[in-house]
């Protein structure tokens, strides 16, 4: 296992491992003063109005601190000066700490924390399994571009790993190509039908061809069954 060693800079009068933080956010007219948006949480179902409510800082869940340092040294100068924070720990951050922090960030859905944790890992030394896991975690954290990049990086490093190749192929940037066809005047007629008659069939599935209603049903399967084939018609739920 590769290990990175960093020394935590001394900070006087700071508890070494402070209690978790709670931020107080003021919410007015549905705009939170914290990061993110209440619209991200429509399930709250609350009348926001004006309220003061405690907001758990995202890092509370996402930053899993390393265990208490096992190594360090006493700052004898500080000790002599009577400063209360005199133990300067040497925090050993291992690659697995990086993975652990990625796991925590993904669990919290905290994209920013995930990206920070991902960047702390030396991917040149990681096995294929870590790339696969990291892609999954990135998707879970909402870090979709990171998922793409990790998949591409992993597939390039391990070209014989079919799962990584599959991940990279599926997540790759889209490829656009021309599909020559006769201009389809029928889609304009279908659009016009939707605008003119949509309200009448709202919420139902329909099949249309060149502005003509072919079938109506409660499911895609039912309208396909009525039309008898899937090509040559527009199958859509009516908005």
């Amino acid at each position, binding site marked *: 296992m590769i290990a990175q060693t960093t020394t935590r800079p001394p900070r006087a009068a700071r508890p070494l491992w402070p209690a978790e933080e709670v931020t107080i956010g003021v919410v007015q007219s549905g705009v939170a003063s914290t990061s993110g948006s209440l619209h991200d949480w429509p399930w709250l179902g609350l009348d926001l109005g004006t309220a003061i409510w405690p907001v758990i800082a995202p890092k509370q869940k996402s930053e899993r601190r390393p265990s208490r340092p096992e190594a360090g040294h006493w700052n004898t100068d500080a000790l002599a000066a009577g400063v209360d924070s005199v133990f300067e720990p040497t925090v050993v951050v291992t690659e697995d700490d990086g993975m652990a922090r990625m796991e925590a960030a993904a669990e919290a859905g905290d994209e920013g924390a995930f990206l920070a944790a991902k960047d702390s890992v030396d991917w040149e030394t990681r096995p294929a399994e870590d790339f696969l896991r990291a892609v999954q975690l990135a998707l879970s954290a909402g870090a*979709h571009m990171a998922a*793409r990049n990790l998949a591409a990086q992993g597939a390039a490093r391990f070209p014989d790993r079919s799962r990584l190749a599959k991940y990279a192929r599926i997540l790759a*940037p*889209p490829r*656009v190509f021309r*599909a020559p066809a006769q201009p389809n005047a029928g*889609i304009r007629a279908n659009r016009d039908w939707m605008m003119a008659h949509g309200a009448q069939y709202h919420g139902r599935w329909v099949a249309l061809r060149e502005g003509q209603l072919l079938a109506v049903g409660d499911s*895609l399967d039912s309208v396909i069954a009525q039309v008898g084939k899937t090509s040559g018609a527009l199958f859509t*739920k009516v908005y």
Partner: protein
Amino acid sequence: MLLQFTGGTLFATDAAPYAYLPVTARESAPRVILSIRLGEIETSAFVDTGGVYLLCAPQLAYRLGLNPQDGIPVPPLQWGRGRFDGALHRVNLTFIAADGDDLSIESTMFVPLLKAEEQWPEDFPCILGMQGCLERLRFAVDPSDDTFYFGELAQADY
């Protein structure tokens, strides 16, 4: 009638009409709704530039013959009114042109996987997100006649 840069190079080579309507009974804001083709099936999809991937309703994915095991399993993600497990697939999506040629995008598509007791609560067949779907497409809308212009990037733009 198609769009071009000042130097005469075409920006958009193709165009299609769109419907401008709310997509669910609980929304009043209209969306840009286009006709697309997935596999053999022509259906409708709305543009969501704040979203990711192409989202496909489960019943449509079933009709396309997609096997979840061929995709990337995705942990529960928030889509519309719920969190759903799902899988990501690579599919060809075709924009159907009324003027010009159709244009296909090999894109990343998310298909929700529903548990036995779950129902897909959304009212729309497909959503066109940005990353993994629209991000390499040139497009513009003309609200004066509800036309969606689109075209492929020049090779130098990749």
